[in-house]
């Protein structure tokens, strides 16, 4: 089950929906391109004219502040015109269908959709049905994928660790519901990380998780040994009420990242988190704000990485 929907006839990026099916060369190209954009935000005039005259619509069917803002900034720094729409979806009052929304916006001469949706596969669906000249960037769909987040994580890791080959990476927390984790795992595997270890109770791991190319641990103390990169995931509060976990405090006791737990990992290990952080639930404040944390670096890198992906998808002929 692979698809080339994301690539055009020349093998260049057309849509960015998932890491799956993309080559190491292409992921590296994204990271290299992002590198060239890092300086843009430090300039007096924080803009490059690459997407001047292009119209990008941020279509957020699910709330998000950080992701929407960084996409907006990234588009603006590429000189595109940006429109951000928050479309509240209510299952009870079914109004316009997803496809109708897309069709309406299409007829306003849009060049790119950045889509976040609560249902897995929504970005694929839009890419399959939208006009051929429009690119679709997945900004998170259900529990499926969040590929731009994964790429900014890879960018941050590469910035600090340089090479993926020797790295042992731990991903800790709610893997089951996490689109971030799925994309991170695919990216790390494609880029050749030595080991990816998922650490969580069984209730927060999907069936046959090892088929994703990871090793599994249910014990944080054991799981953190020899780890170079610690990737925390956000724990949604509603997991307590759906009988996946007994309590926040028990979760924190077993899987919360504290200073003493972090000492088990390698001394130069970095700590990452896609945000927003639940302090005292999955991570201790002293760790989140501590010297090994690169959480805020991730956020600023998000802009450069999203600039890279948007500009590559909009210039599929490789003229970039």
């Amino acid at each position, binding site marked *: *089950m692979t698809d080339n929907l994301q690539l055009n006839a020349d093998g260049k990026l057309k849509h960015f929906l998932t890491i799956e099916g993309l080559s190491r060369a292409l992921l590296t190209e994204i990271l290299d391109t992002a590198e060239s954009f890092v300086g843009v935000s430090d300039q007096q005039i924080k803009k490059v004219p690459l997407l001047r005259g292009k119209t990008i619509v941020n279509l957020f069917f699910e709330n998000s502040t950080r992701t929407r803002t960084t996409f907006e900034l990234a588009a603006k720094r590429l000189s595109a015109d940006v429109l951000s729409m928050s479309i509240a979806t209510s299952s009870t009052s079914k109004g316009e269908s997803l496809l109708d929304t897309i069709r309406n916006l299409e007829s306003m001469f849009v060049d790119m959709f950045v889509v976040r949706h609560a249902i897995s596969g929504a970005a694929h669906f839009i890419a399959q049905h939208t006009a051929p000249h429009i690119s679709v960037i997945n900004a998170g769909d259900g529990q499926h994928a969040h590929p731009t987040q994964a790429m900014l994580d890879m960018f941050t890791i590469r910035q600090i660790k340089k090479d993926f080959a020797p790295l042992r990476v731990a991903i800790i927390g709610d893997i089951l519901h996490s689109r971030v984790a799925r994309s991170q795992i695919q990216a790390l595997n494609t880029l050749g990380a030595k080991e990816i270890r998922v650490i969580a109770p069984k209730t927060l791991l999907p069936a046959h998780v090892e088929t994703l190319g990871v090793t599994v641990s249910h014990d944080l103390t054991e799981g953190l040994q020899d780890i170079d990169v610690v990737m925390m995931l956000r724990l949604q509060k509603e997991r307590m009420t759906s009988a996946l976990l007994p309590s926040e405090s028990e979760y924190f006791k077993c899987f919360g990242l504290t200073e003493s737990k972090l000492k088990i990992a390698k001394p130069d290990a970095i700590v990452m988190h896609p945000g927003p952080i639940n302090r005292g639930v999955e991570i201790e404040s002293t760790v989140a704000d501590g010297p090994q944390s690169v959480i805020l670096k991730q956020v600023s890198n998000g802009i450069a990485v999203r600039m890279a992906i948007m500009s590559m998808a909009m210039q599929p002929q490789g003229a970039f």
Partner: protein
Amino acid sequence: MANILIQHGRIIDPANELDHVGPLYISGGKIASVTDAPAGFVADTVIDASGQVVCPGFVDLSVRLREPGQSRKATFKSETRAAASAGVTTMCLQPDTTPVIDTAAVAELIRELAEKAGYPQVYPIAALTRKLEGNELSSMLALKEAGCIAVSNANQPIRNLLILRRAMEYAASHDLLLIFRPNDYWLGNNGCAHEGAVATRYGLPSIPDAAETIALDQCLELAELTRCRVHFGQLSCKRSVIKIHQANKYGLNVTADVAMHQLHLTENDIKPFDSAYHVLPPFRTEADKQYLRQGLACGTISSICSDHQPHDIDAKLGAFPETEPGISALETLLPMMLKLVAQHAITLSQGIAALSEQPAQILQLPSGTLTPGVAADVCVFDPELAWQVNRSQWHSRGINTPFWQQTLKGRVTHTLQAGKRIFCLADGQ
């Protein structure tokens, strides 16, 4: 009624262990002979079936025709035509229509719709509980008298096992067959894909096979307790086959079927987020598929249904989990059965039996055979004729099938229902 002679065809009638080339005589709407011409027989119509197979018309244990209530998806007219073109001469209609088949009036309406469509052998299945809500018993006896052939709660859960027990006891009192699709509501957890590697990779809400096997176990226990006749519909996994096999060995008189597509597709065949593959129960693993095939070959699963569920375009247009499950499956029934034969999973005779004799026996209908004296429900098909699944060849209003645009082998050329020709490929009806 006219005398019909079907000649030079390969007659396969599993019930009578027939497999030979020869004539089939039909007179007065009934099978007259499969050997010599009856005395004084003069054919009004002669069908040349050279190179073709002549077998009993197919009996389908589970279809949705979308009427009453959802005529935007399909109608009796469109779907009975699709059935006729697929060699199906008897169909059981699931009770989850709108309104639900829980009163005699709705059952009678369905019989009327069927008569009007010129396809009288649509048997409604009565709702086991009122509105299928799983709380109160339906008026099963009145429904039986109005023509319902069995009772079922379709895909709706009965969460309280005491109610299921009472319903089974009541059904048993009136010698009604319960058709049960096992699925534990809570374990199913509103999933849309098999709980396995593929759902994990795509982040799809998933259904473990235990959702089926646990519900199956519960119903088997209650079948033992209540002595209700139970037929399990649309099994999808390995351990279900094992459990049915064990129950039969233990002496419990239960039967089971499988939907044709489950014998061909697995989770690995799902194209990324392609809603044509959204079915319930979901496509499971290769091991499950192989077990279902073996179960069919050894008779643990005695019949195959189409589980025909035509949809309008909009129902399948959306992100995978939000689309409606089901496949428009009548017209691919024969070619997919022949594919099982070509792959040596079953013999041709077994395939025909699973589509005709066996389901008829489950329903205690006299059809499904070519025994002289029974109504002449006959299917004639060309096993070698290849055709492409596309608009011009298709009768159902629903084009929701994963086999769309594929070229399949095996086509029905004539369908007779009680001696009346209801489909002829050459006429392009």
